[in-house]
């Protein structure tokens, strides 16, 4: 049973455009929702995270939108740049930072390509 569903699997966006990646979760006990960015040959790195008590969080060009009733959250990348080309993973966990015993439950990832 996949507890975090991510879409789309791949995404191509023109430079300067908005990239949008969506995730849906099933376990209502989840209370921490991070997005990780992974470049080829590297480990995942935390990009931005949100807790369910807020509906939106913005850090620079990256914004998480969170809809608790729908059990959905999304990542928006504004003014997308070629350097943003990477694989993006949404995740969820029980525990403020994902540092609990269960760790992070990941979505299947989105391969994002930003065309110059």
């Amino acid at each position, binding site marked *: 049973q996949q507890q975090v569903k991510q879409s789309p699997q791949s995404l191509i966006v023109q430079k300067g455009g908005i990239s949008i990646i969506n995730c849906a979760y099933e376990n209502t006990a989840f209370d921490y929702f*991070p997005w*990780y960015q*992974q470049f080829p*040959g*590297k*480990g*995942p*790195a*935390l990009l931005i*995270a949100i807790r369910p008590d807020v509906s939106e969080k913005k850090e620079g060009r990256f914004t998480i939108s969170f809809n608790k009733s729908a059990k959905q959250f999304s990542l928006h990348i504004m003014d997308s740049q070629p350097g943003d080309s990477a*694989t993006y*993973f949404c995740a969820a966990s029980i525990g*403020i*930072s*994902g*540092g609990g*015993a*269960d*760790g*992070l*439950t*990941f979505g*299947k*990832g989105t391969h994002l390509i930003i065309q110059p």
Partner: protein
Amino acid sequence: DTAVSQTPKYLVTQMGNDKSIKCEQNLGHDTMYWYKQDSKKFLKIMFSYNNKELIINETVPNRFSPKSPDKAHLNLHINSLELGDSAVYFCATTGSGNTIYFGEGSWLTVV
């Protein structure tokens, strides 16, 4: 200094062999993990270790065993390697209320 370092980065080995992947963290964190990333890039937790105690063990074959000689290290031992074990293995670590930090991964290929 790399916060979470793994060795080796690449490992090619034959079926049936026993191998180990080492992980060291210099962040002083209490909890360490092993994650597996398969060929489709799906990341799944394998083990969680806190203060030398195994906290969680997902549906991972008992051929896999984590061993922590001290708080800064969590090594992954794999016995009787199978073709399906080919994957990227990531060590990760977190402290109280902190982010999970991942190492750069160890690419295991079983032939």
